[in-house]
């Protein structure tokens, strides 16, 4: 058996404080997949939201995070939020290319007694499942339920774009999430809204436009007959799951698309209970699809 992979897990502000099923289901699932998660207590915000307004502050925050997360010398950093993932993969990319910038960040951190030794590998949850755990292992998971369930994948903008900063999949035609879904015994299919934006970034500055984007994503996806949509990002999950009812009602429509975290779906396939993956916190109509996934 391969050596156990050790990953520092960075949950991110929003998943820490609001969408806590993200961290819970990830940690539960990793116990079964030969991955050792380290969850450092000393973390800070990655600076994503105000990166435009305060670029230096954001880079410092991201650099500080890199230092805290690599203190335990992990094989990589697993980022659970797409916003944080973009910040970290971009910082790592820039610091690799620009030694002066790296030295500058280091000297800032040294002042605080923090050391940024190496530049770590930044790992997205989809990358972890597809490239590190591997679809062969996922195929071996005990399967419950019915394999006619048609699943829509939602990667989220900052998992893949901009393609000028390396990420884990092709930015215009990604496929790793589909392969994971298929390995789990479900069907996946491309759809026109697959790479569309959930609108979450606009919650802070233009909430009504945020709702409009979410509506276009949810209603667009729902019309193709999917039984379930899966995502990994806590912000996308907030817009597509938690706010689905409000979003649909704003436009005189009804909630109708069950949404789960990819790690919740994997957890259920592993035979974990609904409580183990905090499925009671999903607010979209997941009851519609549960009987087809979990054999009771």
């Amino acid at each position, binding site marked *: 058996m391969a050596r156990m992979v050790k990953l520092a897990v960075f949950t991110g502000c929003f998943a820490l404080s609001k969408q806590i099923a993200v961290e819970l289901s990830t940690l539960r699932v990793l116990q079964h997949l030969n991955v050792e998660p380290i969850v450092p207590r000393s973390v800070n*915000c990655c600076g994503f939201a105000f990166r435009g307004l305060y670029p230096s502050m954001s880079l410092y925050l991201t650099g500080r995070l890199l230092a805290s997360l690599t203190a335990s010398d992990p094989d990589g950093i697993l980022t659970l939020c797409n916003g944080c993932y973009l910040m970290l993969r971009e910082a790592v990319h820039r610091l690799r290319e620009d030694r002066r910038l790296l030295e500058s960040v280091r000297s800032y951190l040294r002042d605080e007694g923090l050391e940024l030794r190496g530049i770590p590998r930044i790992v997205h949850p989809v990358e972890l499942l597809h490239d590190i755990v591997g679809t062969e292992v996922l195929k071996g998971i005990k399967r419950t339920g019915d394999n006619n369930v048609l699943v829509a994948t939602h990667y989220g903008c900052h998992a893949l774009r901009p393609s000028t900063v390396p990420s884990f999949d092709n930015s215009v035609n990604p496929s790793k999430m589909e392969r994971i879904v298929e390995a789990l015994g479900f069907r996946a299919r491309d759809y026109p809204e697959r790479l569309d934006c959930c609108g979450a970034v606009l919650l802070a500055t233009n909430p009504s436009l945020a709702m409009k*984007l979410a509506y276009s994503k949810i209603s667009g996806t729902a019309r193709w007959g999917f039984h379930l949509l899966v995502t990994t990002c806590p912000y996308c999950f907030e817009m597509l799951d938690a706010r689905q009812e409000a979003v649909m009602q704003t436009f005189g429509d009804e909630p109708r698309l069950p949404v789960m975290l990819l790690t919740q779906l994997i957890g259920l396939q592993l035979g974990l209970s609904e409580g183990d993956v905090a499925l009671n916190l999903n607010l979209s109509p997941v009851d519609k699809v549960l009987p087809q996934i979990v054999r009771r």
Partner: protein
Amino acid sequence: MVLEKLVEVSLETLRACYTCFKCIGVCPAGLRPNLFVKAYLSTVFRELRDVYEEIVTNSSLWSCAKCLKCVEVCPQKVPLNDVIEYLQREAAKRGLAPRAYQDMVENIMGTFLAFGSQTIVSRDGDFYTTGEARELLGLTPLPEPNKIEKFRERLKGLRSIG
């Protein structure tokens, strides 16, 4: 210190825009990203000053969802995200930045995180605070703001330079 003056957008890349309007076609927020390019160019070409004024003072800058579709579709590889962020900083100099970002920075200065405790609702209609829900599910408590003074001072310094 290099951190104090992070690279701005290069004019060379910006001149590459040949007004093909592909970015307009993909923008889910209904914006015209190519106009942001024009506004940015006004820092060199004075005749574009009107576009600059218009863009920096109107709210479209804050209606960008950061979906990065425009960046991806641009055949000339214009870094539209950098352009938009630059213009947002220009607007902020005039006090036009939304309050929400300030609040997040303040929160980070006090707790390391952008958000404090939230209300978490279950499908059965139960309400929990973040702390209660994390404890119930066996997750670690949120990080304690220990030894935060130095960090706070650093953020204040960096806030003043952008």
